[in-house]
């Protein structure tokens, strides 16, 4: 517990900008008059819509089902009537069909006492079915153990975001239960809960929950060990790739997925959803988000229904103090800017930021001055400036040899670049071209290909 793990290379100490919302308890947002539920899987695949215009739906009822065996289920976040099904823009820039549900009718859950179902007697198969039915995991989530290492990711190193922090502070018992469920499901040899070194309150709160659990004897003494480990709060220490690299003894190879290697990283929001799905039998229809940025009047940590348009959230937070130049879904490093305030909250969103120009420090792109700052901060030990030049001039093979695929797109290099070179976009484009190159090469390598 005392040892503080470190990011082996690069990374950034950032001004956390968390003081706006860090100490604000999570509150429930008002239900949206119209919820807009995108009918799309997180990986962009299509979803079969199970409702039609004019249907009345209940809270938490299944309205969309992915194609394929373990696909993601989508539930109605509010009770009401389906008014429309049409395409909307998503934060990713794609368009997808969405179901418009107008609020109305009876609530099944809201205002009623939470019933906690016993889950320890459930079989592995039953647990798995529950998680899929409640729409908490999708097909990409390997649900069969045994794992060598399960990492619960309690790091939140991106500026502004506090949702993970608030969940850990307020619902540490639930998180612990969630971890226990995951342990039962995945049967890991070791379980680590990674917390930020400076977040002593969180360490104390989770430590207290662990103590309580032991006193109540819920695990009956046979429970698996949960280890709390500390990691320095340097961006991008909370990235899956970095966590696996730091805590997993095996050398990471790009050929195998993490699941195949026997390691899995689960974030706090998912752990919380696992708890709610299994112990409360509640489908995934809410998300805890941080609303922050200098342009919003009353920053907050909100529990919102998925499908709530961002416009409604602005209203919920007292409106805007000034026109933001960027509205970002997610953190300021990994998050995506949106251009339409009717975009709804999606299941991946950890926050919505209304950023002013003074917070962004935008600049005009100028030529590279070889300052080497990008090299200094790259957590993967790459040479971002040279990689970008390869790609900019169309030398994709050379970029691949220069470890282009090692880039995790964390954005540290682009953040520090004084010439404002769009490095991350460059690498994204480069990866697309490099993938084409790899495909044609592999075809050529095959006999008779």
């Amino acid at each position, binding site marked *: 517990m005392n040892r503080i793990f470190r990011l082996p290379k690069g990374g950034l100490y950032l001004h956390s900008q968390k003081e706006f919302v860090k100490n604000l308890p999570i509150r429930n947002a008002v239900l949206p008059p119209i919820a807009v539920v995108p009918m799309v899987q997180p990986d962009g695949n299509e979803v079969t819509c199970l409702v039609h215009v004019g249907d009345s739906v209940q809270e938490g009822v299944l309205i969309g089902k992915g194609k394929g065996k373990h696909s993601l289920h989508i539930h109605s976040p509010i009770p009401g009537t389906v008014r429309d099904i049409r395409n909307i823009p998503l934060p990713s820039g794609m368009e997808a069909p969405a179901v418009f549900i107008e609020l109305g009718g009876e609530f099944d859950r809201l205002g009623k006492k939470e019933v906690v179902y016993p889950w320890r007697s459930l079989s592995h198969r039953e647990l798995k079915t529950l998680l899929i039915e409640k729409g908490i995991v999708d097909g990409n989530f390997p649900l069969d153990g045994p794992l060598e290492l399960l990492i619960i990711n309690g790091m939140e190193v991106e500026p502004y975001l506090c949702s993970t922090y608030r969940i850990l502070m307020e619902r540490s018992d639930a998180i612990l239960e969630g971890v226990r469920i995951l342990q039962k499901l995945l049967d890991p040899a070791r379980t680590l809960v990674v917390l930020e070194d400076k977040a002593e309150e969180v360490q104390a709160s989770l430590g207290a929950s662990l103590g309580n659990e032991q006193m109540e004897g819920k695990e009956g003494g046979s429970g698996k060990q949960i280890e709390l480990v500390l990691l320095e709060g340097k961006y991008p220490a909370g990235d899956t790739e970095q966590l696996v690299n730091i805590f997993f003894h095996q*050398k990471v190879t790009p050929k195998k997925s993490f699941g195949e290697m026997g390691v899995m990283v689960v974030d706090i929001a998912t752990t919380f959803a696992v708890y709610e799905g299994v112990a409360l039998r509640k489908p995934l229809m809410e998300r805890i988000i941080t609303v922050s940025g200098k342009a919003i009047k009353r920053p907050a940590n909100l529990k919102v229904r998925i499908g709530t348009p961002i416009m409604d959230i602005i209203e919920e937070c007292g409106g805007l103090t000034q026109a933001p130049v960027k509205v970002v879904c997610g953190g300021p490093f990994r998050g995506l800017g949106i251009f339409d305030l009717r975009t709804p909250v999606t299941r991946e969103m950890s926050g919505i930021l209304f950023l002013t120009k003074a917070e962004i*420090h935008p600049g005009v792109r100028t030529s590279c001055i070889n300052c*080497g700052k990008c090299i200094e901060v790259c957590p993967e030990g790459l040479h971002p400036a040279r990689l970008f030049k390869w790609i900019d001039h169309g030398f994709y093979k050379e970029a691949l040899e220069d*470890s282009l695929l090692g880039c995790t797109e964390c954005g540290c290099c682009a953040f520090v670049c004084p010439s404002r070179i769009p490095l991350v976009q460059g690498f994204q484009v480069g990866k697309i071209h490099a993938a084409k190159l790899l495909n044609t090469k592999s075809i050529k390598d095959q006999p008779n290909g």
Partner: protein
Amino acid sequence: MDETLIITGTPQIFNRTTTARMIWTVCLWLVPSALWGVYLYGIGALKILLASILTSIGIEGGIGLLRKESTLQDGSACLTGLLIGMLLPPTVPLFIPILAAIFAQLVVKWSFGGLGKNWMNPALAGWAFVWLSFPDQVRTWLFPTMVRGVDAITSSTPLTLLKNKLFLEGVKGGSPMEVLASAGFPRSLMDGSWTDWLNGKILEPLGILLPPGYMDLFFGFIPGAIGETSALLLLIGTIALIGKGILPWEVPLSVFSVFGILVFLFGGLPYGLELGTGDVLFHFFTGGFLLGAFYMATDLVTSPLTRWGGILYGVGIGGITFLIRMFGGSGEGIGFAILFVNVFVPILNKFLAPRPKGRDKRV
């Protein structure tokens, strides 16, 4: 308000520092040293500074017009001009700074494609061009008027005087300060009083005694190039810039330690003194060493990319400066040392490139 939202790729926020901000900040912190030169040597120094700055800016603007893309706002033209002016003695005719600026901008910087593409420090290259082309004009120095209370007179810098004594007259057996004193190198009135004060209040209880002459070097009451004389003002600027993270600390650190150690060990030998008697303080404060080590060697464009590259680069500069000063014909040395090591920067960048995680080979 939807129309005003910006959409970019990730990341959505940036560090405050931009290239232009960095370069303008360096310019700003160089201004006190340049103005000190104007104070010492009079309005002639100001004319030289303005000539090089305006020429440099004019060329940048002209090229901007041709390329239909202005690069004036990044400040690099202004910095190049300012540095050229600061490197020149206050007596040169005005065509010299103009020629130096033209060479720096057109040949060294823009023939390679502008800021970031040049492999040699433009200001230093411009200085070297006129230094080699007009040896007489560029090696005539002025004695600061306020030191002796008379009109400015031509003089040599402490380092060139030392060189002449050593090579031409064969003076041996004395530290640099003793040689200067015996040659009748004048000292300002402030020097005596400041040295007394410092010795009485701070150094004597510690058992050290500062000989006279150093305070002149430190405050800058000596003949020299317009911007190189005041160690105090240069140090203040450097501390501010390194503190802000604008100048790297690795390069100056290794330049200073290597040069300092070499001077300490072997600096006394040419004067017939023993090993370990070199006058480190004297050599730090003369010959534009501070200006070179802090503001020219640290030029981001022409210094290596990685930390270890920077350290090796500094070792090279420190070592070659030492060699030129002790055994070469020129007293200054650091300018040519930097230009010489600039040549090796691509090799340092190649062999000290970062090592990607999970790969044993450097790429």
